[in-house]
């Protein structure tokens, strides 16, 4: 696959919203590609990036030099375009009309990976040589790779389906084979066609099943949102067909008890260092089983505050003191393998009962069965959902009892049904340009609430507004810039947005003393002035019970 073909593919994928067209475009390109270029393309499709090794400042300088403009002018262009690679590609003068015939793999290995470990002079020479061989599309692609910003916006499911079709295996089989990671080499690409040696995959988790969101007003985060009540309600049928569990606010993980015993996260990493007690306890399980569940911290009878969990997740090496105050728990809710065999195709009802039997022998204080909640009606379940936060959980999980474990595939058999978000009205005090369709628009907002006659920032948010609203707010903000700090614009407080978030926690890093989790914009409050925004006190009143002490803003 040449660079030009890859650029055509990327452009083609961007130009169509149809999943089937994207899949067939991808399949055709992967099928026709040389193994090494296909491996790289697939690696990018899985969402990997090559870290940037050339400082942005130097890239700007080198391009400024070629374009005969000042680096400050390049920065102005960047502010406007929003995307650095695109800006630089538009500025480069005298690019050839067409890219010369270069394989994608050569561009990536010589023109991007090859920059690592080179001196600045060598880097500048390498880049300059590529700018003589690539057309504008090619230079854009190259610069996206060099700046570490290259991303193909293709859903993982489509990427896997297309790659599976190109190499002639089932998509679910390919999903299993790449679950522990994929290395972009020609050999690894060819090896995807063959079953792996079981010993090599002993530390490899199974593809995680994901849940759709019910009734969450956040189109960016949850495209599959559907309300359970009201005119647009989806019909879930009888409540008896569902397994209902608490939605834990912990870390999703698979506990692998095979030749290796590991706690595998949904990313391509392991949580063994953060939760050594769970891994230790797992050694008490019989060999040949894999449990799906949630790792979290427990204090007395409820989950510990999320901040405690965050401290653990940051752990690089064993720190005994940190682990004594609260203890880790793995709430198991599914069984993927037992006695060395894959049981993912069995219905949930069967997997659940085998899980219950298995855990009857586990150490109950560390590896626990996630409780099954029973309700007679959906309304009763809804009432429990609404009060979920009082019990330290995020809401409910709904899972169809008659369905297999559908790792990495469509939604519909698992739903998360979160407690209603908390909301406040906050004021935009700073903004910077967004990316993608928000490029060049001041649309990443820093939001503040009132406190003692001033405004203190409490959140950053960008998702949730319509394109027209984003453009209208951009115009207002650009007309009221009072200061510039790099890409950041300090603006006169004018725009009030209603933001929703899942919870408030104490934060030493934020000047306000609190931080909100998963902030997203609900709507633009054109009817409100900054004086009518919420005050810090109303945010503090939403702190978790055991966190409310000591949340004092830094002065």
């Amino acid at each position, binding site marked *: 696959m040449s660079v030009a073909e890859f650029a055509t593919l990327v452009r083609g994928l961007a130009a169509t919203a149809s999943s089937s067209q994207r899949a067939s475009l991808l399949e055709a390109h992967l099928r026709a590609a040389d193994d090494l270029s296909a491996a790289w393309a697939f690696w990018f499709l899985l969402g990997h990036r090559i870290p940037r090794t050339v400082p942005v400042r130097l890239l700007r300088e080198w391009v400024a030099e070629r374009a005969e403009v000042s680096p*400050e002018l390049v920065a102005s*262009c960047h502010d406007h375009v929003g995307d650095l690679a695109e800006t630089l590609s538009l500025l480069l003068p005298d690019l050839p009309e067409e890219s010369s015939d270069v394989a994608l793999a050569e561009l990536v290995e010589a023109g991007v990976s090859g920059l690592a470990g080179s001196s600045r002079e060598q880097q500048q020479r390498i880049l300059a040589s590529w700018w003589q061989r690539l057309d504008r599309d090619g230079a854009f692609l190259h610069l996206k790779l060099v700046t570490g910003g290259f991303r193909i916006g293709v859903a993982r499911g489509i990427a896997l389906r297309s790659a599976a079709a190109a190499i002639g295996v089932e998509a679910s089989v390919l999903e299993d084979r790449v679950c522990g990671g994929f290395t972009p080499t020609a050999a690894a690409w060819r090896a995807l066609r063959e079953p792996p040696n079981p010993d090599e995959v002993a530390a490899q988790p199974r593809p995680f099943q994901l849940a759709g969101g019910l009734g969450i007003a956040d189109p960016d985060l949850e495209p599959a949102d559907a309300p359970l009540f009201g005119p647009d309600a989806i019909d879930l049928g009888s409540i008896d067909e569902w397994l209902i569990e608490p939605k834990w606010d912990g870390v999703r993980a698979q506990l692998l008890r095979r030749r290796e015993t590991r706690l595998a996260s949904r990313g391509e990493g392991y949580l063994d260092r953060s939760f050594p007690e769970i891994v230790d306890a797992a050694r008490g399980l019989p060999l040949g089983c894999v449990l799906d569940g949630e790792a979290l911290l427990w204090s007395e009878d409820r989950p510990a505050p999320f901040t405690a969990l965050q401290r653990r997740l940051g752990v690089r090496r064993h720190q005994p003191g940190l682990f004594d105050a609260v203890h880790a728990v793995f709430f198991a809710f599914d069984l993927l393998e037992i006695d060395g065999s894959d049981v993912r195709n069995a219905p949930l009802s069967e997997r659940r009962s085998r899980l219950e039997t298995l855990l009857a022998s586990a150490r109950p204080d560390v590896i626990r069965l996630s409780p099954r909640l029973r309700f007679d009606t959906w309304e009763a379940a809804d009432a429990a959902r609404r009060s979920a936060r009082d019990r330290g959980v995020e809401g409910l999980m709904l899972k169809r009892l008659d369905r297999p474990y559908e790792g990495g595939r469509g939604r519909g058999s698992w739903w998360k049904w979160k407690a209603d978000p908390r909301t406040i009205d906050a004021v935009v005090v700073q903004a910077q340009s967004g990316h993608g*369709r928000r490029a060049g628009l001041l649309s990443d907002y820093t939001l503040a609430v009132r406190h003692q006659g001033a405004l203190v920032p409490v959140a950053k948010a960008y998702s949730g507004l319509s*394109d027209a609203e984003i453009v209208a707010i951009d115009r207002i903000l650009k007309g009221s*810039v009072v200061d510039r700090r790099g890409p950041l614009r300090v603006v006169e407080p004018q725009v009030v947005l209603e933001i929703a978030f899942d919870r408030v926690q104490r934060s030493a890093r934020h000047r306000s003393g609190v931080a909100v989790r998963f902030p997203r914009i609900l709507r633009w409050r054109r009817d409100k002035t900054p004086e009518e925004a919420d005050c810090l006190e109303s945010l503090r009143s939403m702190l978790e019970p055991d966190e409310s002490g000591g949340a004092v803003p830094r002065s």
Partner: protein
Amino acid sequence: MASRRPTLELSPAGLWCPFGEFHIDPWSPVPQAIVTHAHADHARPGMGNYLVAAEGEWVAKARLPGASIQPLPYGERIRLGDVEVSLHPAGHVLGSAQIRVEHRGEVWVVSGDYKLAADPTCRAFEAIRCHRFISESTFGLPIYRWPNPQDEMARLRAWRRRCRDEGRFAVLSTYALGKAQRILAAMESEDLPILVHGALEPLIAAYRAHGVALPPTLPADRANATAHRGRALVLAPPSAVGGAWIRRFTPASIGVASGWMLVRGMRRRRGCDEGFVVSDHADWPDLLTAIAATECEAVALTHGFAAPLAAHLRSKGLRATTVRTRFGDESEDHDGPGVEAAVGSVGGDELFPSEGPA
């Protein structure tokens, strides 16, 4: 001449000539206006009298029905108070003019909007030597370098043919004044039928009345939508393409013709299937060329990317300032992203503030 009052000042109503007692493209009602061209942000309603280029008379009448419009042929000098005024082609749209104002041997030129690229529907930009030049800077960033207009028109026509082959309407979002006529002029008989939105019709008629040759067009009404389903090219202003009106043209591919289409984010935001980089404004190299050609000793830049362009010109040794006007506000011709305003209030400032002591 260090101590004299400037020939043009920025008053609360707009650019003001105290010696001739007229405003140029004012944004509040005044008795005497000289108008560079008929786009809504330059030709606002409510002026006592409008002096316009004779070639733009029909267009101005279509845009400002009932107004008192006084035509002046390009290049012809008239005396207003103590100054001599003449209008010169700006190459932006039919009848667009640069305003030359001469007072006691000192020449100031207000560019209005302009482009240097060839356009068969209007007279080409003419560089006017002057002491002071007040220039637009809509696309005043070095990323804006227009592709060859013929290539872009060829791409547009290829898209139009592809749509017909696929049985879809080719709906092109385009400004009603200037861009629409420029695109029409590039179409050939094989590109027919062409349906046009009602907002374009009086302006197309004005161009024809002035003698600009344009291919035949049909109203974009329901009857024609049905009669030419899946094979017509449809021209409509951006507001119509974003609204319910567009639904009668289904299935359709949506194209946008605008200089902003050079940037991916803008294309994505417009939600179009195809973007064509066709602009009636000067791109970066042409702004530099036009400013240099005036041989001016100082330039004031307004609307668009005034500050970055001014900084660049200063680095090349030219005296360059920015002026905050209301050009570009809420205009069909400037529907790009918001641009951070030049520092200063709208109106009430000197155009060249770092003038030496009086």
